[in-house]
């Protein structure tokens, strides 16, 4: 990488360089937080895809077998419905597998899905511990803690997001609620609850992985079968977090996205507000 340094960075050029104004930046994310954040992308994706492949082997949501097809899986019903109603899917070769072909590694590969799931699950736990270490070392955990005012502020933010598209269309001014913290109340709620969901996913995962040796853990979630339902719905927390998360990051702009890669941000006003 030494080769990529521009030639004017050579030591002798110091005195001849014109004075450039410095850029004021703030440290936003500890590097461990950044690394674990991005590592989570393939890990959680792997967990979801292999998880739904595992789900295929014994779906939680079943009904009495259909007298004609013998199908009992609600996810297969959804696939059949999609192929019947959604344009462009009418000629799909195997409608009951539609969900599994689009949201998992595929049907009928339990052994491989389990192995990938364990690989990703152990990586996820390790990654989670490093993430927490990064939060502690960078002091970032303080910005994630819920506040007493969060309920009201969160509703205010929610109202802002709801009204934003309409205000844009009507070309009306739509003011962003003021706050002087690193995150707004909705962000804080999301960034606090997703790690908690991660912890619960790990706990319910162990409960259904070792329901005999860790039967107390399964009992904590209401038994083996209930722990499976927990584990399944915790996945949907990630999915329902990731979609608005990605949209809002892009809506918020380059500085926010870049700060998760490089760690710093040039929007310093907030830090000044906090500092004063």
């Amino acid at each position, binding site marked *: 990488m030494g080769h990529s340094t521009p030639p004017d960075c*050579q030591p002798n050029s110091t005195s001849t360089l014109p004075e450039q104004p410095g*850029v004021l930046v703030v*440290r936003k994310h500890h590097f461990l937080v950044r690394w674990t954040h991005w590592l989570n992308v393939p890990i959680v994706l792997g967990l979801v895809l292999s998880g739904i492949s595992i*789900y295929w082997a014994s779906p939680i949501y079943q009904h009495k077998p259909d007298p004609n097809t013998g199908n009992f899986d609600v996810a297969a019903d959804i696939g059949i419905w999609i192929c019947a109603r959604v344009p462009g899917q009418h000629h799909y070769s195997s409608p009951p597998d539609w969900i599994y072909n689009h949201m998992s590694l*595929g049907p009928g590969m*339990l052994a491989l899905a389990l192995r990938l799931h364990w690989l990703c699950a152990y990586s996820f736990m390790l990654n989670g511990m490093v993430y927490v270490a990064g939060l502690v070392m960078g002091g970032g955990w303080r910005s994630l803690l819920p506040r007493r005012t969060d309920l009201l502020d969160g509703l205010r933010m929610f109202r802002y997001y709801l009204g934003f598209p309409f205000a844009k269309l009507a070309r009306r001014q739509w003011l962003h609620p003021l706050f002087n913290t690193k995150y707004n109340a909705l962000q804080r709620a999301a960034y606090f609850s997703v790690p908690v969901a991660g912890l619960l996913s790990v706990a319910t995962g162990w409960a259904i992985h070792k329901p005999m040796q860790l039967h107390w853990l399964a009992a904590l979630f209401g038994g083996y079968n209930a722990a499976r339902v927990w584990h399944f719905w915790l996945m949907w927390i990630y999915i329902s977090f990731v979609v608005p998360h990605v949209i809002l990051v892009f809506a918020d702009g380059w500085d926010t996205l870049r700060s998760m890669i*490089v760690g710093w941000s040039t929007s310093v006003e907030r830090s000044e507000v906090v500092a004063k």
Partner: protein
Amino acid sequence: MNYKENGDDSLQPKDIPSAGIGPIHEMAALPEAGPEHANSPVPMAIANEKPEAVEATKQQEDADGSPSPSVDHRPRTDEAASSVAVKSVSLKKPQCFFGERPLPAMEMAPRVLRYRSRRDFLVFGAGALATLTGAGFLLPQDTLSRFGVRRNVDSPGKEWFLNKALRIDDDVAEALYSGTRRVPTYTKSQITLLKNNYNGTTPDPGYISGWKLTLDGLASGLSISLDIRNLLTRFSVHEQVTRLVCVEGWSAIAWWAGLRFEDLLRAYPPMSQAKWARVESSVNLDGSGNPDPYFMSLDLATAGHPQTLLATHFNGQPLTVDHGAPLRLLVPVKLGLKNVKAITRITYVAEEPRDYWAERGYSRYDGI
């Protein structure tokens, strides 16, 4: 990499992630800002920054010729930082341990920012590329085909890697196992339906009349054959209502009765070096009804668990063909696939024996 580390240090003495240290370093860089540290601001600044700057300059002169992008800016950045930061930092001491702290602001030369951004983006891109390669390596061909990706060969490295992950999980399961920890038992009112999950075709009941259990690998060196009456008269029958958990995810609570494996081990002790039992059913059939012997490895520690039964009865009735008449293994601390139906032979061995499902990509120990 080395010069980069040094570059970082010399550039940003205040760029230290720990929140506890952060403010002090800012003080060091910005002596005017903190009156409470006014007794020694200048020496601190010198102590923190000057030696590193010198060190970095020395690095410049190293024979490797790796340029440190930071050194030329050093003096100017210092001045700028102190003049700008006076404006931005008038820090109050945080009152509460849990209270949010202001983000540390600092002045950086644009060139340094560019250099560091480029470095971070390159690392990010390399990581993304490595992840995609890893995914292409690990994911099954069926999945990749949907993205139009064709992998020419299935590398043995993939199997090795995934087996490694599987072994780690098996080791964890083995570490979690305790010979004295009992699995939860239920009342008979909690019994649920247990489906016949014979892997292939359910065998014809004709085999039951001539059925015998053969024991091999015994301390006596003999091969012992027992019929069901021998077993039921020689050993006391125990009952339990336990949960059977399948690798597929479903489970069933059932009422079982049979003899303890532990008692069989005591009556017919295995040879001294044996650590494993190979449990086999020769009556097993594949999907099209052809003989497909089912064999499974069981560690003797688990075989000796007090709730490991050689079950003869299911829900108060003698076992039916569906459930492995006349004798099946019931080992609730293992996945259902270890609970061999219609056992015909148990062989005690020193080395871990082959396992039907482990050969098909599942784990071997299967402790739950």
